[in-house]
């Protein structure tokens, strides 16, 4: 039934397909002929594997790479990477900075905070991350500060994959401030992910196991020999390393045995250190199932011994190297490419990447390099099919339109704006530092919808309302306005020529190339031009004249307003179409 209707749709569409981009048309036609019985095979028969991509290198391919590895493709970033080869561009993106962004600041006041609490000593405008606070009110504000800061850090990212990978790890090793509550824990967690963005996966698993936020979040700090708490032991295997689809797989008894290995680690809340309490550790030996070849981890009694038990546990889990490597590579694939992983992709992409991953001692960077430089990644069927998450949509919009936000010299208003953007992501169902559960966001695991989980009858209107607000009225607080400046954006589309935007066709093409990853028809472009730039007239020179008049008298509010309103409505329309939700 499903297949038949797809086929019928395809036949209907083929009559009109001549309006599409030529390259995509030919690609599609050739591939649609491939026989297969899989549900989406007609949509997605990608033959390309991991050979280095050597095709055309234009705005389209660069925008694809940047929208998947950074938050959006600014015009100057596109031009910057156009000057390199695809391989060089990926190498630059994978060279992450060694330093950390400046830490979050105290952007809140002391009202209702216990006068004896440590937070009181933190001066406004300085960072709170090095000062322990036990006060609930203070921590509530710290968490808000952390979230705003995290959004700001993504907006102010450099030309690297670091922030997108930090978000990947956040989704993978999910924790929630709603549970661990302390701002400092969240900062330490976020810093670990950022520092490990393209590092060694096995090292990261060990570090996450002993990260204070995780220890708190999955109850490791309560895990006791007399009543083992399985929370972390389960997710370590199910969500963080092995996945749940292996056959055979770890057993419930393995969860229990791993929980016993992990007993005895405690949090000292006064100074926020982690310590080992020998009396709470299970010192007996732990034997695992046949899946782990009946491995026995000898029980030990002191801190070094308990630490060695964790190493033994991780060594045992990572000895299932095929399962671990394929699970993580599939997650990376779902994050950077698409959620349908058909048999050809498993053979041509997942398995060789997984092999590289385990042979390379669990280093992430080489695996990303192979994937992002590949013919497969740049295949036209891999482009434009990612539905932007709320944070991706919002932050891409801020960056691509280069929306002005106060800098750190006015941190109060800077954080206000970041906080607003965070609040908008929350209503669209993505709260940074508070994913819905330990499984992360459903868009990356929930069959069969995956990315489509982001879009429904409730969240889609909220996306549109946000878009409308950002370009029409703006968000105002404290007399600072957060708003898209369409005229400045238009000028930046044509860095070499102030008069070039006067060609309405070139302008629409440039805007569509930057904002969209999927083609629109010439019919629609023509209708957009007429409706917005020509105000219903038929001659292009009406727009050309309006733009010339503005360039000729930049301080004149009348000529400015003529181009401003038309450009505003043009971009508003482009962002209101469904195409804008894809990257």
């Amino acid at each position: 039934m499903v297949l038949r209707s797809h086929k019928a749709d395809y036949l209907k569409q083929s009559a009109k397909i001549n309006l599409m981009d030529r390259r995509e048309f030919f690609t599609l036609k050739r591939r649609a002929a491939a026989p297969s019985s899989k549900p989406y095979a007609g949509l997605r028969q990608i033959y390309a594997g991991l050979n280095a991509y050597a095709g055309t290198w234009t705005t389209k391919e660069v925008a694809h790479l940047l929208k998947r590895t950074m938050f959006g493709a600014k015009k100057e970033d596109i031009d910057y990477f156009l000057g390199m080869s695809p391989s060089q561009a990926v190498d630059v993106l994978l060279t992450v900075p060694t330093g950390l962004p400046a830490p979050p600041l105290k952007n809140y006041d002391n009202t209702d905070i216990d006068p004896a609490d440590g937070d009181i000593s933190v001066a406004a405008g300085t960072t709170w991350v090095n000062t322990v606070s036990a006060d609930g009110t203070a921590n509530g504000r710290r968490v808000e500060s952390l979230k705003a800061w995290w959004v700001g850090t993504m907006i102010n990212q450099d030309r690297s994959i670091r922030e997108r990978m930090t978000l990947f790890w956040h989704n993978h090793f999910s924790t929630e401030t709603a549970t661990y509550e302390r701002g400092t824990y969240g900062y330490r967690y976020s810093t670990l992910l950022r520092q490990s963005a393209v590092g060694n996966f096995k090292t990261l698993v060990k570090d996450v196991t002993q990260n204070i936020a995780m220890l708190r979040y999955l109850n490791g700090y309560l895990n006791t020999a007399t009543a083992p708490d399985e929370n972390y032991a389960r997710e370590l295997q199910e969500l963080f390393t092995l996945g749940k689809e292996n056959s055979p797989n770890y057993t419930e008894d393995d969860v229990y045995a791993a929980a016993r290995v992990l007993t005895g680690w405690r949090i000292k809340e006064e100074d926020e250190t982690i310590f080992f309490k020998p009396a709470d550790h299970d010192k007996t030996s732990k034997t695992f199932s046949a899946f782990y070849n009946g491995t026995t981890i000898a029980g030990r009694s002191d801190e070094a011994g308990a630490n060695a038990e964790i190493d033994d546990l991780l060594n045992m889990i990572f000895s299932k190297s095929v399962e671990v490597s394929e699970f993580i590579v599939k997650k990376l694939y779902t994050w950077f490419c698409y959620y349908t992983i058909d048999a050809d992709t498993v053979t041509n992409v997942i398995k060789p990447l997984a092999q590289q991953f385990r042979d390379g001692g669990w280093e992430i960077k080489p695996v990303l390099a192979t994937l992002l430089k590949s013919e497969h990644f740049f295949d036209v069927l891999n482009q434009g099919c990612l539905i932007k998450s709320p944070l991706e949509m919002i932050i891409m919009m801020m960056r691509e339109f280069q929306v002005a936000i106060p800098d750190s010299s006015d941190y109060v208003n800077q954080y206000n704006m970041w906080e607003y953007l965070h609040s908008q992501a929350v209503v669209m169902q993505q709260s940074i530092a508070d994913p819905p559960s330990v499984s992360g966001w459903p868009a990356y695991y929930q069959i069969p919808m995956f990315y489509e989980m982001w879009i429904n009858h409730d969240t889609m209107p909220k996306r549109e309302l946000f878009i409308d607000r950002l370009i029409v009225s703006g968000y105002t607080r404290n007399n600072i306005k957060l708003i898209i400046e369409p005229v400045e954006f238009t000028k930046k589309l044509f860095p070499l020529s102030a008069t070039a935007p006067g060609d309405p066709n070139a302008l629409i093409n440039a805007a569509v190339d930057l904002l969209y990853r999927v083609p629109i028809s010439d019919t629609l472009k023509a209708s957009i031009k007429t409706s917005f730039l020509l105000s219903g007239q038929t001659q292009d020179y009406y727009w050309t004249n309006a733009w010339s008049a503005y360039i000729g008298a930049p301080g004149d509010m009348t000529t400015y307003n003529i181009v401003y309103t038309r450009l505003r409505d043009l971009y508003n329309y482009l962002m209101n179409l469904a195409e804008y939700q894809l990257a």
Partner: protein
Amino acid sequence: MKRRDFFKQTLPASVTLPAILNGFSVKAFTNASPLVQALMGATTDTDKVLVMIQLNGGNDGLNMVIPIDTYSAYYNARANIAIAQNKILALNGTSKTGLHPSMTGLQTLYNENKLAIVQAVGYPSPNFSHFRATDIWMTASDSNQVLNTGWIGRYLNVEFPNYPNGYPTAQMPDPLAIQIGSVSSLALQGPVSGMGMTISDPTTFYQFLDEIGDPVPVPPTPWGKELAYIRMIMGQTEKYGDAIRAAAQKVTSQGPYNSNNDLAQQLRIVARLVKGGLKTRVYMVSTGGFDTHSSQVEAADTTVGFHAKLMARVSDAIKSFMDDLKGLGVEDRVIGMTFSEFGRRIKSNSSLGTDHGAAAPVFVFGKNVRPGIIGTNPAIPNGVSSNANVVHQYDFRSIYASILKQWFCVNDTDLQTIMLQNFQNIPIAINTACGSTGVDDVIRGDGEQLVVNYPNPFVENTKITFNTKGGHTLVQVMDTMGRVIKTLTDKVYTSGTYTVTLEGYGLPVGVYYARFQNGSTQQVRPMLKTR
């Protein structure tokens, strides 16, 4: 393909029929005509509504519906979180089972015959992962089976097979199902598309652009698929938005709901839309926080703490909802049920919490439910191990199937299509329109011992004797993880007492359960294998 499906799919339901059916020209009739409906065997006409309440995180059923007859075993297994016996809320007509002290609202409903409690609901070989277990409950799959469609989605697809093509229609102008909130549910996923709408506020909607998409159709590529999906959601939001807003605006006065209770606020929207006249069949609401690994009670007083707040939230919300439905005059039309992806361990942990478990009770509420307690209190063996679980007496899919059959009048053929297997019919709901729904027996008295074993404890073998009243009878043996170890019999008997033998040679020592199922009756018997 069935004949009625053929008509449903080929005729857009919103237009006057142009064709001849069985030799009658039916052009003169509108689609709403009973004759046309009869000829077409169209969608079942019903004003009944089902409300599904999801308790996210895995609810501790043993502290919600508390076994009084085995109180000491209950207490010994979880002394640090057990509810004091004198605090347990009593239920009319039984001294064996009571409710968490925060659930006064549900206690009232039970005593007014508006609440059914189904004991120990789960499925064989339970999964302890949140998302896998949630998927199992949403899709109604077997433990080891991955389905991409939800059970409600499959039901709605049988009723409205061509959806979303051509919808809304004159006959079904409203959303088929509504999820209150901002996250769509796998339960509403149909074979081709989502069958429901997701809304958080019925009074505001966004007006999308008139021209929702490029006039050129999307190609069959991944991006084409995603683009078509987003456009479909935009289009549906637009089309159904007016209907929902209009329904909401018809209702200007409702009963009181606690403004700090998120579940109550969601149910308030449901009551408003039901009263407002939406033909929507299924509503889904959800509330979270049930993953109580730690600090579910306060050490000083186990009747307060986090789980007590959750219990109050659920009970108060359902009570307010039922009162409101009554005040609005629509309580005849609505039943609801609660569910959670799993229950929790019998034994508590040292963090004043409970880890992921298996079966747990389900509430079914409404003026038209068959009230009472279905099943017996879960068997709690002495000296229970820390990974021992409540073994299921009732398969959750039996409840779904029973509701579809008894509340929505789904016939047996369709039921098989929707539920993918035959499930036991449990007497749960009363809808006279469905006629006799094949509930051929009543649940037997809860004192009647229908399955015993001897010897117990046993070393190698034990004889299991059961009393069947005839018909299909099943005896399974499960371990404490809920895994089916052996099926001792699974066939039709004439009424009487029979004996089968569990050959336990080679099984590890420990607790096992014999699960006896006969018609709508089930019992579980704990058995101990020793050296």
